[in-house]
């Protein structure tokens, strides 16, 4: 029998038709939408006189441009308000479930999908957002699409896709103390570059991946797109089932047993082949931080910015342009650089586990005076848990400002902007020029590293503080 990868199994089960030397007609199980990439799709759908074919397969929430304060009031920014109102109107008209601002399950689309149990192993999931890859943590094929494709999914629940090539990244061994899944993914991207995954769908495997929680797995799959891959997935296991059990949309009773029996078959067959394979040792991974303007430009927090040795003219030009933007020099050490803002949040690291780890770290400490610290929970559910667990109190005592759920300063579509020229160490996913506001300078890192930076006011390896704590005890 043919040996298949997990990716093959899910992909092949969703192909309605294969066009010779063309794309596959690919069926989509779940479609998430938000206010920014859906309005033109609805507009064109209506212009052509089409209807949403299976409205129950689409789930909506406004997240990208919403304010993170005063969510109970009318949105002040006129254009943002219009987009959110358009989403409400479209969902009502087409019979689509909307998790609106202020409701129990409002939040970032990639946080609420898993939280509600909508995301389940073996599914195909798309959204007009490249971080849809997050859902791959559950053993799903999940990826971002453009607005034309959003319209296709509305009209036909299908898109036309050529099957990507397959890559497997295996990480074995044990992670050191203070090293998190964010460091794993920043390490991988630094190894294979911001374009090294282009044309591929990734399976993450190995004992280090297996040992991670669902939240941590989501962080890894989330950033698959940052190496150019369409998405990344992790085979479901007991950790996955445990997470999904009892969630609102998870199967119940007999249906649950049947589902789990099926989910257990969603594994890559022994002997299945991949177009490319990479192997890494978890013990080699340390806390990571980026220094440039794409997520592949990352080094150990204790490392130095690479020099231009060995670069060709065109690489050199782009590299220097990037460092100029950041105000850094080749060869400089990262540790000790002064920082102005920290941001904890986004679909990458805005889940409860992330807030817990920051709270545990900063408990009883104070943020540095030069730091403005923003914490934005990924959803209302995360916010509620953070309040109940006393996390919010700890963070506020430490001088962090807790805001309401949304994408916030990750892409700065709302008012949560880092001022021009200022440095932000951020748990988000992109350090592009101006990503967190025009002229802003972003350094990506794990929630733990962000917490360490908040305390010292400069780039700091979280292990320095963890070691201090151990000594004090």
């Amino acid at each position, binding site marked *: 029998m043919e040996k298949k990868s997990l990716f093959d199994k899910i992909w092949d089960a969703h192909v309605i038709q294969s066009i010779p030397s*063309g794309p596959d007609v690919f*069926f989509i199980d779940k479609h998430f939408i938000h206010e920014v990439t859906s309005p033109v799709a609805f507009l064109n759908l209506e212009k052509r006189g089409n209807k949403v074919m299976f409205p129950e397969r689409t789930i909506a929430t406004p997240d990208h441009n919403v304010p993170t304060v005063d969510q109970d009031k009318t949105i002040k920014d006129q254009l943002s308000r219009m987009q959110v109102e358009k989403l409400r109107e479209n969902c009502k008209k087409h019979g689509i479930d909307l998790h609106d601002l202020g409701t129990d399950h409002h939040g970032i689309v990639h946080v609420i999908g898993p939280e509600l149990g909508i995301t389940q192993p073996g599914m195909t999931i798309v959204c007009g957002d490249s971080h849809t890859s997050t859902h791959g943590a559950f053993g799903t094929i999940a990826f971002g699409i453009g607005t034309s494709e959003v319209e296709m999914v509305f009209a036909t629940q299908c898109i036309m896709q050529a099957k990507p090539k397959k890559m497997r990244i295996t990480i074995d061994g044990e992670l050191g103390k203070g090293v998190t899944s964010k460091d794993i993914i920043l390490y991988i991207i630094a190894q294979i570059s911001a374009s090294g995954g282009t044309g591929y769908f990734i399976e993450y495997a190995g004992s280090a991946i297996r040992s991670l929680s669902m939240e941590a797995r989501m962080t890894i799959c989330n950033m698959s797109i940052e190496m150019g891959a369409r998405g990344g997935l992790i085979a479901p296991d007991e950790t996955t089932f445990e997470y999904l059990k009892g969630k609102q949309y998870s199967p119940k009773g007999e249906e649950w047993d049947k589902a789990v029996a099926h989910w257990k078959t969603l594994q890559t067959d022994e002997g299945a082949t991949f177009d490319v394979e990479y192997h890494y040792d978890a013990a080699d991974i340390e806390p990571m931080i980026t220094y440039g303007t794409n997520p592949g430009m990352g080094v150990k927090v204790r490392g130095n910015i690479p020099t231009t040795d060995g670069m060709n003219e065109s690489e050199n030009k782009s590299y220097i342009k990037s460092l100029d933007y950041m105000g850094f020099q080749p060869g400089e050490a990262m540790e000790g650089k002064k920082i102005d803002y920290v941001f904890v949040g986004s679909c990458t690291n805005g889940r409860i586990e992330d807030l817990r780890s920051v709270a545990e770290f900063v408990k009883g400490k104070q943020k540095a005076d030069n730091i403005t610290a923003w914490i934005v929970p990924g959803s209302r559910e995360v916010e509620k848990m953070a309040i109940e667990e006393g996390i919010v109190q700890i963070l506020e005592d430490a001088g962090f400002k807790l805001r309401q759920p949304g994408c916030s300063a990750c892409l700065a579509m709302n008012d949560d902007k880092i001022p021009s020229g200022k440095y932000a160490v951020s748990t988000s996913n992109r350090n592009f020029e101006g990503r967190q506001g025009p002229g802003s300078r972003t350094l990506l890192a794990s929630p733990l590293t962000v917490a360490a930076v908040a305390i010292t006011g400069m780039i700091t390896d979280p292990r320095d503080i963890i070691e201090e704590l151990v000594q004090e005890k």
Partner: protein
Amino acid sequence: MAYDKFDVLTSRVVPLSSENVDTDQIIPARFLKATERKGFGDNLFRDWRYDKEGNPKPDFVLNDPTYSGKILLAGKNFGSGSSREHAVWAIYDYGFRCVVSSFFADIFKNNCLNIGVLPVTISPEFAEELFTAVEANPEAEIEVDINKQTITLLSTGKSESFDINSYKKQNMKNGFDDIDYLLNLKEEIVAFEAKR
């Protein structure tokens, strides 16, 4: 939605050699707040093109009157990052019909093909040659022929072929998009869905 048919495009070229140009540069997030597809070309490369006060930055290629044309010649890994189709809308709305690069990001390339901007992938060597030629002579013209799947620097006759799958090629030539095709499969889709 339907777009202009693509056949043979002969045009001067706007060169942008930066590598890893992400879609946040092509169109920053704060310009994604429209509910209609209108006017995105004005904000194409907004923060590279204009300063904080909205004055054109003279050193940016779109503000350099020496260069014009319907072909954007771009550096390696063009269009990375966000899936925003708005990036391609901005490119199309500005007047480009074709983007040439030695390497495209995946979602961006898909988005191009879905709205009628032809992404042409060429070898790094040919890309280097085109950049040099256009720099030496900004009036140099390139011919992109979708039928023959070739791209030619007219001044030297140097040519390279490019890949496009036959389905997408037909779409581009006829100005069709995928919805037309998918709607014809309605029965198959309904039957498939019923079994899930």
